[in-house]
């Protein structure tokens, strides 16, 4: 989830909750205040009536414009004893002038005259409709909520993108970053301490991994160099032995096998050297290379070498497709992909090669999908073919990385498909 939408979502949720809470408090405070006022005036009114009753003076007329109404009922002493002498409550009160019931605040007081006769006085004062008040408060709170939300969103978007820009620049930089490609420095033009620290930490981490990467390829390169001389010695000694005529046929056959194994070691070493050279970008000079010609030549050459496997290519190639690339790397790229087909495709099958809109696609039949995450790793071997070094596709990937050519593997309808955007 995007950071900004997460912030917006949380802000909106917090706003909803706090607004609802606030609306509730506001409503109760309001109701309480109104009731308080009503009670005061009711008390005043009822004590006025009681004092008039006791003094035997004329009682106020109902309908004198105050909207108040009252009843005086004589009650028994027992009733008076059982009930509180002064109670307030809300009830719906029939107002004769209006001919309808209205919510009203009612005060009930019980008093006795000088003869000991108890009376119950009920004074009612019409008040507000609670529902109406609640509704209008709710509406206004909702309006306030949306206005507030919009304001908060606009302001926080402004602040967010203004202050988070360094973060997004760093993320963009990280997206475009490739290990071992001598990156541009990390963009940290900000006064914000946290981002400066983040940028510095990032720079340190990148420097460290660049250094490790460099050391690793340096190590592979050095190790391969160091192996060259011993390999040369062993090879030459074996050749010397094989050229000497005193060898028994059994010894010669054994020696030949040793030599074959040595050949594999030499090839492995050469490939590792090549890989480390590609990673160290030691192939500067690029020329215009016709990939179509290269593909055709490769198919012809390997077709002869792997004639016994009886694999044919269905070619869908343009006249020419020229790419600016180091020639020997281009040849390594193409030959590894083609050779792969000859080695791994089922015997007698038809493979496909095409160049369409600058995309080289090579596909052949296969039993099951390879592990797409690791197929380009060094020493990834799907088959147990002893002749494969496990470095061919790693080489292809290294070359594609060097020239920023997207390389992809997929398995569709029983076919392994390799694509390179040239």
């Amino acid at each position, binding site marked *: 989830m995007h950071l900004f939408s997460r912030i917006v979502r949380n802000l909106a949720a917090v706003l909803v909750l706090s607004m609802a809470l606030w609306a509730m408090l506001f409503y109760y405070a309001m109701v309480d205040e109104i009731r308080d006022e009503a009670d005061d005036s009711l008390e005043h009114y009822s004590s006025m009536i009681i004092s008039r009753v006791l003094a035997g003076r004329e009682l106020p007329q109902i309908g004198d414009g105050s909207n108040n109404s009252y009843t005086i009922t004589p009650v028994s002493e027992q009733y008076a004893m059982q009930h509180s002498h002064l109670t307030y409550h809300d009830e719906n009160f029939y107002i004769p002038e209006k001919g309808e019931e209205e919510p009203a605040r009612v005060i009930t007081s019980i008093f006795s005259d000088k003869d000991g006769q108890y009376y119950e006085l009920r004074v009612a004062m019409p008040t507000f409709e609670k529902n109406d008040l609640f509704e209008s408060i709710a509406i206004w709170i909702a309006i306030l909520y949306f206005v507030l939300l919009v304001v908060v969103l606009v302001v926080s978007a402004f602040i967010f993108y203004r202050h988070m820009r360094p973060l997004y620049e760093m993320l963009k930089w990280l997206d475009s970053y490739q290990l071992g490609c001598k990156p541009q420095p990390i963009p940290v033009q900000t006064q914000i301490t946290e981002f400066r620290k983040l940028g510095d930490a990032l720079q340190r981490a990148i420097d460290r991994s660049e250094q490790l990467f460099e050391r690793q390829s340096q190590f592979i390169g050095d190790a391969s160099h160091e192996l060259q001389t011993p390999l040369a*010695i062993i090879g030459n000694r074996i050749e010397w032995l094989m050229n000497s005529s005193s060898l028994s046929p059994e010894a010669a056959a054994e020696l030949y096998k040793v030599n074959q194994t040595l050949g594999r070691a030499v090839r492995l070493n050469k490939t590792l050297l090549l890989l480390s050279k590609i990673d160290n970008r030691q192939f500067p000079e690029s020329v215009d290379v016709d990939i179509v010609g290269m593909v055709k030549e490769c198919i012809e050459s390997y077709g002869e070498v792997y004639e016994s496997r009886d694999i044919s290519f269905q070619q869908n190639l343009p006249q020419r497709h020229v790419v600016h690339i180091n020639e020997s790397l281009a040849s390594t790229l193409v030959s590894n992909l083609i050779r792969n087909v000859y080695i791994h495709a089922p015997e007698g099958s038809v493979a496909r090669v095409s160049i369409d809109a600058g995309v080289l696609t090579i596909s052949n039949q296969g039993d099951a999908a390879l592990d797409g995450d690791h197929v380009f790793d060094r020493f990834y071997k799907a088959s147990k073919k002893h002749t494969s070094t496990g470095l061919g596709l790693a080489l292809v990937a290294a070359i594609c990385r060097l020239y920023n050519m997207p390389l992809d593997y997929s398995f569709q309808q029983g076919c392994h498909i390799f694509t390179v955007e040239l």
Partner: protein
Amino acid sequence: MKILIIEDDPSLREIMSRALKQEGYVVEMATTFAEADSKVAGYSYDCILLDIMLPDGNGLQLLEHIRKLGKRENVIIISARDSLEDKVYGLENGADDYLPKPFHTAELIARVRSVLRRGRTAGELALSIGNVVLRPDSRSVQVAGEPLVLLKKEFDILLYFMQRPHHMVDKAVLAEAVWGDYADDADNFQFVYAQIKNLRRRLSQAGATIEISAVYGFGYKLAEKEE
């Protein structure tokens, strides 16, 4: 023909000198930069095999020295660093050839022979064994003076053998040399057998006095026919 081997590894030095001596060359050896420098200054050689990674100096500097001294020795650089810069730098600074490690003995001898021949014949690069003459530049072959037409692969194979006469050539090495990288790890070498068979037939039909014979079933050797 006198050859100086400048190589710090004793075992490799021994093999190289043994192989070259067997070919009839007079071989001298130097193990360090200093020793090599004094030998180069004091004597003259037909060919110098120069390892560029020496314990006490860079062989490329020695190359500059040799050229500064105005010597015309043929120099073949031998390097474990199969790097293009070294190769380009070496060849630009007067080396005649560049041989990356690990190399085959036959390859070393072929390169030495080729460099020496180039020095002698000034550009005329014909290889000749028995009554067969092969000109790599014009890609032509003559048997007893008559032109022999060969297919591309057949020619390449013959060229490879003619550069290494009397040496056993591993069929895997041959496959790699003629068919390109990685051809040597093919499942079988049927394609090599087929081409060799055709080449043998063409040579014998043309009446060549050389033949390609199988050695133990894992390689071939080109030699003049024994009468």
